């Protein structure tokens, strides 16, 4: 337990928070790459998934991309970028890797959400004379919303975790506190960094759950369990 106390001591030392490799700087890097990557991933994955779900095609792609995403190690992809010419372009390698790993959960969940909209409801909406666009905006999107949010949550968790691993290939972010601690055999710093990363991940998850509650268009459906695609 001594280590936990020392880790706490590390966290309460002001000098560790300031400066170019301080916690605030690392947190800023972490949040910057995560935010940019998540926004890009949403901009890429959601339109594709929603469109494919709306027209009901491309199921194999939407499902298989998830399996591929699981099988490819994040660390390997980051390392491949870092030995390629991309390494000279700042945080671009991290952002690309983060996008690659955020797209599968977004795509799969949004697609499955669209496909699981009750066919009777869709038929009824068509029978009422709704156009394809109205059907999409007023019926399919609200009903697919819970799963879209599930996808967003898994993608965010994935992005925060991947941004941490980026430190192992020398990129910025909170993971650097951990790797720096490993390099100097400073276990309290390793634990302190790990606590910060874990806290950030839980915080992101918590904020998204809260956000979900606030903006859910159909709160009665919010009780649906979050699901993994089996």
């Amino acid at each position, binding site marked *: 337990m001594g280590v936990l106390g020392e880790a706490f001591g590390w966290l309460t030392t002001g000098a560790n928070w300031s400066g170019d490799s301080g916690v605030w700087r690392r947190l800023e890097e972490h949040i910057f790459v995560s935010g940019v990557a998540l926004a890009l991933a949403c901009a890429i994955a959601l339109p594709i998934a929603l469109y494919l779900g709306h027209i*009901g*095609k491309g199921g194999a792609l939407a499902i298989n991309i998830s399996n591929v995403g*699981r099988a490819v190690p994040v*660390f390997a992809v980051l390392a491949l970028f870092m030995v390629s010419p991309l390494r000279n372009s700042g945080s671009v390698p991290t952002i690309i890797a983060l996008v690659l790993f955020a797209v599968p959960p977004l795509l799969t969940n949004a697609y499955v959400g669209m496909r699981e909209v009750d066919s009777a409801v869709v038929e009824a909406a068509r029978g009422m004379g709704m156009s394809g666009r109205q059907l999409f905006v007023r019926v399919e999107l609200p009903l697919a919303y819970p799963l879209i949010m599930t996808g967003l949550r898994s993608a965010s968790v994935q992005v925060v975790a991947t941004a941490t691993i980026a430190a192992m290939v020398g990129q910025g972010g909170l993971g650097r506190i951990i*790797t720096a601690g490993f390099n100097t055999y400073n276990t309290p710093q*390793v634990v302190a960094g*790990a606590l910060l990363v874990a806290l950030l991940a839980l915080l992101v998850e918590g904020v998204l759950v809260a956000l979900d509650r606030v903006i859910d268009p159909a709160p009665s459906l919010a009780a649906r369990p979050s699901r993994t695609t089996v």
Partner: protein
Amino acid sequence: MSTQGCLAANDWICGEYLRSRSQELIDATVQHVWITAVSVVIGLLVAFPLALLARSRPTFAGPVLGLTTLLYTIPSLAMFSLLLPLFGLSAGLVITGLVLYSLTILVRNIIAGLESVPEEAREAARGMGYGPGRLLWEVELPLALPALMAGLRIATVSTVALTTVGSIVGRGGLGNLIEDALPSFFKAQVLTASVLCVLLAVVADLLLLGVQRLLTPWTRIRPARTSRRKAAPTGPAGAVKAVG
């Protein structure tokens, strides 16, 4: 000439590298496989009682699922680092972290599998005088196998990929080779280790699929469309194939 030069030229693909470092590659692969295998087996051994507990005592179901989901949220590098004071730089650290991750998927899928057992099958077995143990082992478990194996496959594939992060403590199998190659930008080593990693995941997945086929011969007799009820043919678009 080109085979000799590719190491010096730092090419992505290099036959000379494969020849001269084959022992290193084999050692790393062996470490990768045993760390993954031990983690998944322990994960299964821990997940099973947890799932049974969650099922028999509904009050435990919430905390068990909540805790395993919480663990899954913690990034792998942080998880391994938090275990450092407990395990030091050892394979035990990596294995413990991987077990904790696999629990989320395994517990969920075992519960889903057990829930998918038809109540009539249970009733019939009880009527035939099956005790709880025999009911579980001879009726429920075989019927839960498809969902269980689906979870096992996902957990195994994720574990193969996550093992690479173990290189932070020098126990990451092929991840070690990737890490060692970074300071010198050794492209052939990074690419070879990465490809081997993905290959391992694919082979493990196919092996488990084979095991599942062997263990559940009856699923092959049933018409394939029993699992397809979601994508009912609605509207003009063709039904989606193979969701799930």
